[in-house]
């Protein structure tokens, strides 16, 4: 038996780990526009991609163009991504909706900074949580992932690409400045140690192909532009052939399918880490760098004899309802610390429906949420 190869260890910035993850996942196109605190992702891509066969890096004129170029690249068969922060994320919203509607896989990394507007450029915040969920107009499903340490930045970027390809949808990776700018030792997995999923391409002859046809998974196969399958892509509501339609039954069919293709795979999409949650009386629900503070607080509480636990959200949307409900069977208190005015606690309250007391910890001053702050609230019970 071949001995397992030792993994390469590197000392990396969160943003650097995102690039490593993207390249491992097969990303070959990056289009972006610089903005703090996400710029390193773009800068490292600028150095790496041109040296890889077929790799394309483009600095576009703005975030709107970045999204356009990324969608164009994805339609041409590439695994493509962009990275930005608050104000840039706002500019990306219109084309994000296009990617949802035209079912275009892509990864959008948003390293959150304080807002609204140009806000606090170099300070950590988690203020774009609901914008990630509802930012683009219209009813739409969306997958939003997060990471709380540098290793997870790498892992979750791979996951983001896999989900984008699997479900033909844009995936948002929401990071905060603390995670992006932390430097830690991480392991680069060897090939074969992680899943790489690529979109299904049609196997039928081009004349039979219907670009938006129903399938078992709800995800139609997707050929690259120029490969012999000529079809129409549009942001307008379209029928199975991809042509614009306003016929109610066709509109409903499309809307239901794009929701269903995500809804039916919650078990695959909703990723959490459960730390001492089996018997907890008090459960902290946190994500991003705040989850690290929370983990420490939970450990401290346990050493003081309080049964505390942590539900770390790695998928923010669709909100991991199942995993939360399990905890509600025994937890009396839920603590939701976050660097915003309460964007995720809304989701928690929605799922909680009065079962437990929900305590929130909110910081919007550009400062991190500390373990002791969370500890204090846990100890209040």
């Amino acid at each position, binding site marked *: 038996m071949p001995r397992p190869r030792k993994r390469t260890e590197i000392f990396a910035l969160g943003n650097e780990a995102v690039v490593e993850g993207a390249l491992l996942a097969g990303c070959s196109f990056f289009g972006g526009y610089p903005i703090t605190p996400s710029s390193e992702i773009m800068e490292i891509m600028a150095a790496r991609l041109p*040296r890889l066969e077929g790799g394309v890096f483009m600095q576009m004129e703005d975030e709107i163009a970045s999204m356009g170029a990324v969608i164009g690249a994805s339609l041409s068969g*590439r695994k493509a991504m962009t990275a930005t922060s608050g104000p840039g994320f706002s500019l990306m919203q219109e084309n994000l909706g296009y990617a949802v509607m035209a079912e275009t896989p892509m990864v959008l990394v948003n390293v959150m900074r304080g807002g609204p507007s140009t806000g606090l450029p170099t300070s950590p915040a988690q203020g774009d949580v609901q914008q990630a969920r509802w930012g683009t107009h219209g009813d739409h499903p969306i997958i939003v992932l997060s990471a709380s340490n540098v290793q997870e930045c790498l892992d979750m970027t791979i996951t983001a690409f896999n989900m984008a390809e699997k479900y033909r949808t844009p995936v948002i990776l929401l990071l905060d400045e603390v995670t992006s700018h932390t430097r830690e030792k991480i392991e680069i997995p060897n090939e074969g140690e992680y899943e790489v999923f690529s979109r299904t391409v049609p196997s039928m002859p081009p004349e039979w192909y219907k670009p938006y046809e129903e399938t078992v998974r709800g995800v139609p196969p997707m050929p690259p532009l120029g490969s012999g399958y000529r079809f129409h892509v549009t942001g307008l509501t379209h029928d199975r052939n991809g042509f614009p339609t306003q016929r109610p039954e066709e509109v409903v069919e499309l809307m239901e399918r794009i929701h269903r293709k995500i809804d039916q795979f919650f078990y695959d999409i909703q990723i959490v880490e459960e730390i001492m949650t089996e018997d907890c009386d008090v459960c902290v629900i946190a994500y991003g760098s705040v989850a690290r503070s929370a983990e420490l607080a939970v450990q401290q509480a346990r050493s003081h004899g309080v049964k505390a636990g942590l539900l770390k959200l790695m998928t923010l949307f669709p909100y991991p309802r199942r995993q939360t409900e399990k905890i509600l069977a025994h937890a009396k208190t839920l603590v939701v610390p976050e660097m915003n005015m309460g964007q995720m606690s809304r989701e928690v309250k929605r799922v909680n429906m009065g079962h437990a007391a929900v305590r929130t910890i909110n910081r919007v001053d550009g400062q991190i949420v500390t373990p002791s702050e969370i500890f204090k609230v846990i100890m209040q019970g």
Partner: protein
Amino acid sequence: MSNITGNEIIHQYLRHNKKFPHVLCAGCGHGIVLGTLIRSIHSLGIPKDDVVVVAGIGCSGRLAVYVDFNTVHTTHGRALSFATGIKMSNSHLHVIALMGDGDALSIGGNHLIHAARRNIGVTAMILNNSIYGMTGGQSSPATPEGSTTMTNPYGQLDHSFDIVELARGAGANYVARGTVFHVNQLEKIMVEALERPGFSLVEAVTPCHTQFGRKNKYKTPVDMYKWLKSTAIPLERYNELPEDKRAGRMPIGVFVDRGRPGYEERYYAMQENFLKQAAKGAGR
């Protein structure tokens, strides 16, 4: 040019499975532009699979849905950014961006100047009807000064953009202007634009009697075509006119033809170098 008849070409290039009729008004110039585009692609013998038509939003944007190429109907003003991603991902494709004047110059103005500056290998067509057609006749950056629109009931105060000068200044490789009245010339220009490396821009002046003409003394499509006939003048003749005779005339023809390589060519040459170096390093 081929001797195939118009009808046969139509059958070859229109989508048989698309529900017609189309959305354009009778007499609209946009259909003529689409016709020249199809004939020029046909005469160059470019396979349908190698063509990607990327369109913006507006009456002009709707053209993409009818033709049997790879077609992408994007967001308003953003056609060139999508086209850039497509061209860079697969540089052997002929990527054609169809845009309205509002689409290309107003909301998409930034993308237009940067696509030209980069000299990305895309053939851009601006269907200039000097109005926002689809949204009901509001003024566009190409609306002539003094004319009346839904949002300029007292006459347009802004100067109108000179698309040719804009594209030239921004660095486009090939810039030409034609009109739907001068169809043969427009087709010739289109053929050249498709053949040129780098960013080619064709301004196709096309009348919108419904939204522009009605309010500006060109009641019928015929009035509009007569207006095109009397205003347009070949560039060479225009250049010979004394300054005072130039007012109100619109030169048509080829304005810029620089032969510079496209962005994708320069990018992939750089990449080729890296890969060669790496291979050499590995061989040592």
